[in-house]
């Protein structure tokens, strides 16, 4: 009964139980059905629900992270078969993330990465104190759609500008969008350095990224 199985898949993600999600994914493959269906009607519905619940304060970070882990476990089982069938799940977009040069704050950036990846973006996290050159290299390597630069210090905000300039120098913009965030950053600063967007928190960052990919619920 696929319907029941879909419900179980959703629930395994919402409950954040990787073992259960893995088991259900294996069961699905054993039946020889298109793995993409399991993602689209089962697991992905669960992670979307978890993300929404987190957004409205009903679920907490440890719950959300557990859901994300369960999602990863399911995808890991399904991925080889999806590749074989060429029915690759379409990512919302590829995002290169990092904290600006000289800055070691990463809690906010990690949160943004968690939410975006749980929602279907493919995230390449370069970590903290990242040079503009490293951002550019990664963007080229993975053919990214969006670059996100976090900065929490007034001294490292200049690093956000430097990344945008480096993208420009390499002729990567406007195709690649640049977004920024962090405690000291404002929409004024974003405008000043020509960023394509800015957000004050991870939930808004998701909306922003979707809008930039033309997949938002509202227009940018």
């Amino acid at each position, binding site marked *: 009964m696929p319907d029941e199985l879909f419900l179980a898949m959703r629930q395994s993600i919402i409950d954040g139980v990787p073992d259960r999600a893995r088991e259900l994914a294996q069961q699905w493959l054993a039946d020889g059905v298109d793995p993409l269906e399991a993602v689209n009607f089962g697991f992905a519905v669960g992670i979307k629900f978890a993300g929404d619940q987190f957004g409205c304060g009903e679920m*907490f970070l440890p719950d959300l992270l557990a859901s994300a882990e369960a999602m990863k476990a399911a995808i890991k089982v399904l991925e080889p078969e999806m590749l074989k069938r060429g029915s690759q799940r379409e990512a919302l977009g590829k995002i290169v993330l990092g904290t600006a040069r*000289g800055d070691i704050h990463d809690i906010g950036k990690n949160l943004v990465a968690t939410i975006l990846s749980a929602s279907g973006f493919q995230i390449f996290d370069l970590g903290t104190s990242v040079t503009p050159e490293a951002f550019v290299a990664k963007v080229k390597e993975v053919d990214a759609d969006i670059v996100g630069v976090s900065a929490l210090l007034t*001294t490292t905000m*200049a690093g956000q500008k430097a990344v945008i300039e480096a993208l420009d120098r390499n002729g990567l913009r406007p195709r690649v969008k640049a977004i920024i965030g962090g405690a*000291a950053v404002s929409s004024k600063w974003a405008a000043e350095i020509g960023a394509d967007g800015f957000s004050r928190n991870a939930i808004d960052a998701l909306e922003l990224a979707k809008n930039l990919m033309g997949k938002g619920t509202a227009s940018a």
Partner: protein
Amino acid sequence: MRPRTQLLSGDLIGRILREAFELLMSPGVRVGSAEVVELLQAAGVEVTDGVARLPETLVRKSLASAPRDFYLYNRRGEKAVHYGGDDVHFDPGSCCVQMLDPETLEARPSETRDLVRIVQVAETLPQFAAQSTAVVCNDAPSLIGDLYRLLVVLQHSDKPVVTGSFSAAGLQGMIDLLVADSGSAEKLRREPRAVFDVCPSPPLNWSEFGSHNLLDLAHAGVPAEIVAVPLAGGTAPVTLAGSVTQHAAEVLAGITLHQLAGAGSPVVWGGAPAIFDMRTGGAPMGAVETAMLNMACAEVGKHLGLPTHGYLVATDSKFVDAQAGAESARSAMLGALAGINMISGAGMIESLACHSVEKLVMDAEWIASAQRLARGIEVRGDDVSGASLATAMFAQTGLSGEFLKLKETRALFRQEQYLPSAVIDRSARGSEPPTDIFARARTRVDELASAYRKPSLAEDVLRKFQAIVEREADRAGVVAELPGN
């Protein structure tokens, strides 16, 4: 008897330290700079893949060479802050990036004029034993922002300063400013005017930036305040006891690096531990558990006989409202009862991101109340009324109830009661409509700012300041001048 809180039993402190020493061996401590690795290896410490394992004997040796107490001095060369024992001092929170505009009630980027106003107010209020480099000046070049803040404070204050640098390279210019102000490096070492906050990165990571600052401070003999920031559940164990253990390990590692670089150089067992908000990932500075963490971490430091520091009197509210008042007043009380030597955070809202000078004058009231509470109930008046608590006074009044007329009342009420400023409303309702605390705080800020007198600095000191600013601006590739008035 001085009232004291105690959250940790002797047994629990023992366990915390045992596990902290275990953590220093396994998983060990990440160390970010080649210079630090060299220093550790020279001391016989094993460092593999950037991770050092610090044996208890070495850490204990560093603890033994760290001073039990030290003083910060004001510009007149007087002892103004005693780091040690159960003495409690307060300073405004440091390094906000925003300022709450009292007119619009909006947070906007902080500027030089904001820092000057905060310094003026804190200079005038006896509740603040020290100044801090309270906000960054967004109107000055950000690349030398740390240096510039300190300069503004030195130009406008005679009090000691709690400060910190934003990078490994930024520190030297700041120390040079202090040397210029003191007259010589030797004098600065003997009578330090400032203490520098230095943060490890949780968990158990002494990054290139933090460890470099520690070494440079130890070499200069300028006090270092190790501000470990475990966030319980996010960057540290979710249990308060677990986070206190991680905090201990991080500070112990810092003290070891620091003392290896300069044995006997002053260092503070400090911190800004907080819980981790499970909805936002933020660090709720006003949470009661955050206060508990600060108190408990200080207890461990006191057990080791070290000077202590904590981050309290701050709020997560975006306004100066009832939440701000409740959170700040509560933690001021708790910090004072914990006997923390330096309590930073007053004036701060929005989880350390924004400052309000109106809140600063309100916080001064909570601080004064906390200081009053910490003095406890004293038996006094023996000299005035003979050795009695009440009988000698009753011998004079009988049952008349005329205590207001007693010489004891007149002689002692100022010691018994803290007399609040007009920020606190205790008035009887009169013909004027009552005012709200924010309005009273605004008036008080204006009054304090007009009562303030700017210190006059010697011409040659100002010239040295100018030269340092130009040199550092040059190094950073920016143009900067000495801030005006």
